[in-house]
């Protein structure tokens, strides 16, 4: 069983997102972290591998700048291989193009199961799972968890609203958009990543920037204070007073 995990890094939302005067994201100001759903996908892949005993997990990323540490981290966590698709790709590579690049590589790479995060925060079409699946024309499902492999098939749970779920069985090769792994993503020590960085190497695959249909983004902007909350100032004591007064006013306090 060959499993690929498609990974990407996204801006760390802990930091404020600064916009340029042209309404574009000031990419250089940002720090990047692995997309949290991709991290979940990697964890689920590693758990599937643990369960099966013999599966090969490959972390795959398009080289949009500094993805090496993300891939080495994946190796340190237990991935068997790491593939970096290199080419003329910038930090602002749209997901649509990214998906096409990934699909081009995946077409011939012979994976049985491809996992990736259900979405990424950084684009209007951040749903890489569906986009890649469309290119590959393979069975796929998004918003899934609890992946298991048996008898050449892949089983998983797909989540709907209000807690409803379905259990699906997909023929391989299949592609899944992971919502959450069964367990929180594992920790990997800095020393281990350093050691892997020294001892392992990333496999580089050439990729080409494809022509893809796009919807032009005119500008980005921070949501304006149209419906913005009335903000209370002061210390927690003062805020608590305000809340009590408001709830009292709305007759929401039991007496």
């Amino acid at each position, binding site marked *: 069983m060959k499993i690929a995990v498609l990974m990407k890094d996204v801006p760390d939302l802990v930091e*404020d997102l600064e916009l340029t005067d042209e309404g574009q994201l000031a990419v250089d100001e940002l720090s990047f972290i692995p997309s949290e759903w991709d991290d979940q996908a990697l964890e689920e892949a590693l758990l599937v591998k643990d369960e099966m005993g013999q599966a090969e997990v490959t972390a795959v990323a398009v080289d949009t700048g500094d993805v090496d540490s993300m891939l080495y981290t994946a190796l340190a966590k237990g991935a068997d291989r790491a593939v970096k698709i290199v080419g003329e790709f910038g930090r602002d590579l749209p997901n649509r193009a990214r998906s096409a690049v990934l699909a081009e590589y995946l077409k011939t790479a012979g994976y049985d199961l491809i996992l990736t995060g259900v979405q990424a925060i950084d684009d209007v079409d951040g749903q890489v799972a569906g986009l890649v699946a469309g290119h590959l024309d393979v069975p796929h499902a998004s918003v899934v968890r609890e992946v298991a492999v048996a008898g050449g098939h892949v089983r998983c749970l797909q989540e709907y609203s209000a807690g409803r779920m379905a259990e699906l069985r997909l023929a391989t090769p299949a592609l899944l958009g992971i919502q959450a792994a069964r367990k929180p993503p594992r*920790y990997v*020590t800095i020393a281990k*990543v350093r050691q892997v960085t020294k001892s392992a190497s990333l496999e580089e695959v050439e990729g080409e920037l494809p022509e893809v249909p796009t919807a032009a983004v005119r500008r980005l902007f921070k949501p304006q204070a149209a419906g913005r909350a009335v903000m209370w100032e002061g210390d927690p004591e003062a805020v608590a007073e305000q809340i009590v007064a408001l709830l009292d006013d709305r007759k929401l306090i039991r007496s």
Partner: protein
Amino acid sequence: MVLRTVLEALTAVMLLSSLALFGRRVRAIAGVMKKARPIVRTDRVGERLASVVEHVLLHRRMFRITFSGILHFFIFSGFVVLLIDIVETIGEVFIPGFTVGPVLATIVDVWDVVVLVGIAMAVYNRVVIKPERFAGSDEKDAFLILGLITAIVSGIIVHDSFYPFLAREVFHVPDPVARAHFLGWGLSRLWIALGWTSPVAAGAGYTLGYLLDIGVVFGFLAYLPYSKHFHIFSAVPNIFVRNLRPLGELVPKVPEESIAVRSFQDFHWKDILDLYTCTECGRCQAVCPAHAAGQPLSPKMVILKLRDALNERIAAGGWQEAPAAPALAGGVVSPEELWACTTCGACQEACPVFIEHVPKIVGLRSALLEDGEVDAGAQKALVAFDRQGNSFGQPARKRPQWAKGLDFPIKDARKEPVDWLWFVGDFAAYDPRVQDLTRLVAQLLHLAGVDFGILYEGEVNSGNDALRIGEYGLFENLAAKNLQALEKAQYNRIFTTDPHSLNALKNEYRKLGFESKVMHYTEAFGELVAQGRLTLAPLRLRATYHDPCYLGRWNRITEAPRALIRRTGVDLIEMPRHGTQSFCCGAGGGRIWMEEAGMEERPANQRIKEALALPDVAYFVVACPKDVSMFSASVTAMGLEERLKVVDVAELLGVATGLLQVREVQLATS
């Protein structure tokens, strides 16, 4: 003369076989120590010898528990003094007419009594007092050993009581010390009354006493290295090779690969010696905050489990590999035990033979961490340290935001020279509950006219906790970032409000080449007050002071905060556990982020109860931002806000200088 020959032969056989057994065991242990990681512990010989005198001959730590200290001193001194008897007894068998003289002979009998009193006290301690610290120790072994010692002492009296007859009737030598052995002399009166003075009776009686004494001594020698009483031999060297480097330095030099302990070879050789020095006295267990909180950790059991596992592996022949054996981290010692440790160091402080528990626990934690087994909360903190440089997961640029609202600017020490550089620390900078205090410290410095600055967003967490969670690599990264910022800064001295940062800067950064003198703010403010740069109006209140582990115990800074508190006019009442014997709040070693599963009573709550028992004490003074968080939470949770108020030393200074208005004039205490 047959008897003499028989006794000589017997002695020789016993001596050789017990030495062989003893030697075999010691060789096995030494073999493990040889393969273990190196560490320098034989420098500073003078200091080491002095420490042996202090802790072996004078029993300094032993006497912290008076009853146990006395009984142990009795038995211990017996072991030394009764060597005279061994010389005398073997001497009189091998050299006709040998004697140690009446003075030494009398001393032997005096110490027979001393040892017997010690044994009686030990039995009373184990049977009647039954301290909790013995829970988990090998009681059978303890009684066996006490029995053997009783046998030796009895043997001495018995062979001394028959020797006068034997000397006269069989050996035909004088016995000038017969009366000096007053116990044996007394007993010999009984033999005369019973008529057991014939050569045969004397020979039989003497042989029995000889075997009870010398036979058991040799038996003891052979058995010792297999029992906890090996400490008779290992305690002296273990105390000699104790850690003389700064106490707070967990890792003495940059490790070649990792600090993780997966096999016994990954320990330092001193760690191995530690395992065979433990006497199972449980003093570590008695002071452990995790144990007191009902968590599964006992430092004693960690040592015993490791020792037993090593013994099994030595017995099985392949201790180096042991592929089928359970992992040390997570198997021999469970993850729950390892993660429960607050790294407060109370165990090491209590250990009479200087066993170092914390480095072992951290090494084992590191192995768990490498396998990805870590508490979710701790993992979150580690990831936040790595990404944002602080445990709060807040952006680096928000670090100096606490300073907003001050009516004076704070210098950026990276851009302009300052006299005092303030390493603020995470909690002081980010925790909204502590930020008021941080501003107050700035105001106090300003008031005293100190030219000070901070590193702004150039500062990251010191790495003290990351290291103690077992993440050396992360510690190194954090330290490198701080050192880079410190490199750029120009300052005359550096101080910090956070004991955990203090410990890292002062002790852990040395191996990375950082040698500046680092002060705690209580030391620094003490100077300001002494120089008259801060004028204090006396507060006239009664308070107790809690020593933070990383200030008092690990860095021996206990007097500076007390002196400063007294200067503010506070009547300081000590809790029973104070100074280097302080009781941890439960937050250290990364515990502050971890789940409290299995916690019956939080250490912080227990500590608050300890303070409540003091008469008329309404203020609980702390000198650590984490303590402010921990103890305020406890006081609130226990509903004691009206009874006890948690205040930082800085707040006392704030009120005494008039910077702060007293909000509560008098708390209802009586």
